[in-house]
């Protein structure tokens, strides 16, 4: 028994070394009188790894590094698990990070709940008031502010309806994501205003997406996909079913639209959103109060990222007006991805 215990303990210590070697080395703070030159510690946590959120993280890091070249980043990913999101927030608290950035609603909520006296920036949160992060859109909280990725849902649906006749619009969203539920409400209202029948179905995890799409595909003229992390991660299942049935998809996430059969994707460039979050982080680290910074929106023309798939349009017999082609940042033509 004793031998076993010793063995286990030594194994445990060994594994601790192995895992610790994966961590970043922290430089010992150089004590210089009253002023300590301590590298700035920034924790970034995201709910899942997908292209849009990864680009956001990249953009934020680049901007912060321009102002703080020796900043240390602790990059964490909750892999879709709320419990993990909370433990990441606890880790940032015990590491005493100078600033934390939460990418997507659940991770931002976990940070806001845990870090009471550290500035928290949320990004890629659709409705920060609805998510309980701030009191109002016009000003930040005592230690929290950030950037919303509210998409112009009504304009997106109107655009799809202007290209092809849409009597009924299908929408697949995950009922366990606050963002997705809020966007589904907005899509429902937008359809009511535009006189389109709205057919919705929900999923509880990514394994149900394909069947959910098959269940509504026969009843709809088009499909709308919001910035719903669960459905976007299963977008290949949606586009596979839709393209076989000859139904166009309008997506709010351009970064995942290049790999799938999506007619139009209208969203933001998440990389640019990351840069905006980085600029905000630099302001806060420079001493600006979060309560003086209102929630920012990605509304300027430069921030909008439009993708049009001309090959798919030709297949579906839809003509894309020339002015829309001009506006698009990305065109898919003859199997090639053209950035303009």
């Amino acid at each position, binding site marked *: 028994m004793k031998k076993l215990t010793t063995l286990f303990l030594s194994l445990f210590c060994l594994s601790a070394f192995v895992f610790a070697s994966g961590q970043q080395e922290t430089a010992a703070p150089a004590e210089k009188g009253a002023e300590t030159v301590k590298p700035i510690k920034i924790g970034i946590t995201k709910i899942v*790894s997908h292209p849009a959120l990864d680009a956001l993280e990249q953009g934020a890091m680049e901007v912060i590094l321009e102002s703080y070249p020796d900043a240390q980043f602790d990059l964490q990913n909750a892999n879709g698990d709320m419990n993990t999101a909370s433990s990441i927030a606890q880790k940032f608290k015990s590491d005493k990070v100078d600033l934390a950035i939460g990418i997507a609603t659940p991770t931002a909520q976990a940070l806001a709940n845990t870090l009471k006296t550290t500035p928290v920036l949320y990004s890629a949160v659709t409705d920060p008031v609805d998510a309980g992060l701030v009191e109002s859109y016009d000003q930040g909280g005592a230690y929290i502010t950030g950037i919303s990725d509210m998409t112009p849902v009504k304009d997106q649906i109107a655009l799809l309806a202007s290209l092809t006749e849409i009597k009924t619009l299908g929408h697949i969203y995950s*009922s366990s994501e606050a963002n997705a539920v809020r966007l589904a409400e907005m899509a429902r209202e937008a359809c009511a205003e535009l006189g389109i029948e709205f057919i919705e*179905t929900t999923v509880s995890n*990514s*394994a149900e997406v394909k*069947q959910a799409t098959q269940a509504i595909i026969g009843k709809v003229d088009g499909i709308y996909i919001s910035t719903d992390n669960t459905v976007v991660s299963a977008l290949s299942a949606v586009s*596979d079913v839709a393209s076989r049935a000859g139904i166009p998809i309008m997506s709010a996430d351009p970064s995942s639209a290049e790999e799938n059969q999506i007619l139009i994707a209208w969203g933001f460039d998440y990389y640019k959103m990351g840069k905006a979050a980085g600029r905000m982080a630099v302001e806060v680290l420079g001493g600006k109060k979060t309560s003086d910074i209102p929630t920012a929106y990605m509304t300027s023309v430069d921030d909008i990222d439009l993708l049009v798939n001309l090959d798919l349009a030709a297949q579906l017999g839809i003509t894309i007006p020339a002015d829309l082609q001009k506006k698009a940042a990305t065109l898919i033509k003859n199997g090639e991805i053209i950035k303009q």
Partner: protein
Amino acid sequence: MIEGILVEGLIFGILALGVFISFRILDFPDLTVDGSFPLGAVTAGSCLQAGMHPLLALLLAFIAGGAAGTITAIIHNKLKVPNLLAGILTMTMLYSINIRVLGNRANLPLLKIRTVIDDVMVLTEPHLSYTVSLLLFFLIVFFIIKILLDIFFMTDMGLSMGAMGNNEQMVITLGVNPEAMKIIGLSLSNGLVGLSGALFAQYQGFADVNLGQGIVVSGLAMVMLGEFLIRSNKIYFLTFRVLLGAILFKAIMFYGRYYGYYIHLTPNDLKLITGLLIILSLTISKMKDRDLLKSFRGKK
């Protein structure tokens, strides 16, 4: 329609076969399934991404699932942990392993990667439509597995495994080692579950670590629905009715989405319906048993 019910029914039929082996033949309520299903998906996904031949990737997914089942059996045998807890422990550990296997990510798209589905399409493209060839392929896969299982359960080892599920004490007195039986049974069961996960990931075009949430309950519902449809104790019927149960379950889920819309039933209620289905099947099976007993007594 055909895809959503029959093809998914066939893929999940393989999962249901695995659940049938652990729950019914071994009488071992094994929750490892929630972890071994995505394990199969991510193993196959990573192998395909590395450019491996799809059939080899499927084989590796089967082996990975089998290894997970072996771990559960060893925890249960050697540490005398109750079977439910052993399964839960493995399932929990597998979550981290699955993320590692995918290279520290939770999701891997397989659209641009050559999968077994693509290989099948290349073979059948000139002759059959996409849906028909999918259906045919999964039908062949399911029946190959089913027939192999039937043969296995006719052998001495297969028979003693079934006997152990019925009465462990009796098998021990006959000189069979129940621990070895559990290891073989659980690794076979979880191997099938992993294979099913690998096929499902390729069918839907992505592998995700969250694929397994609550999948063991779906599998159990399929097994019970099958029992509710056909009553028999012949092994080839037993394995066949698992498939019928899987297809019926998928049909109920599909139409629940399709028509539930009109009676204000949202897809969020499907999990509740799954649970109620299991309870209903159990109740009806129990009642049937009692009727049978009565009819026997009446004859005597």
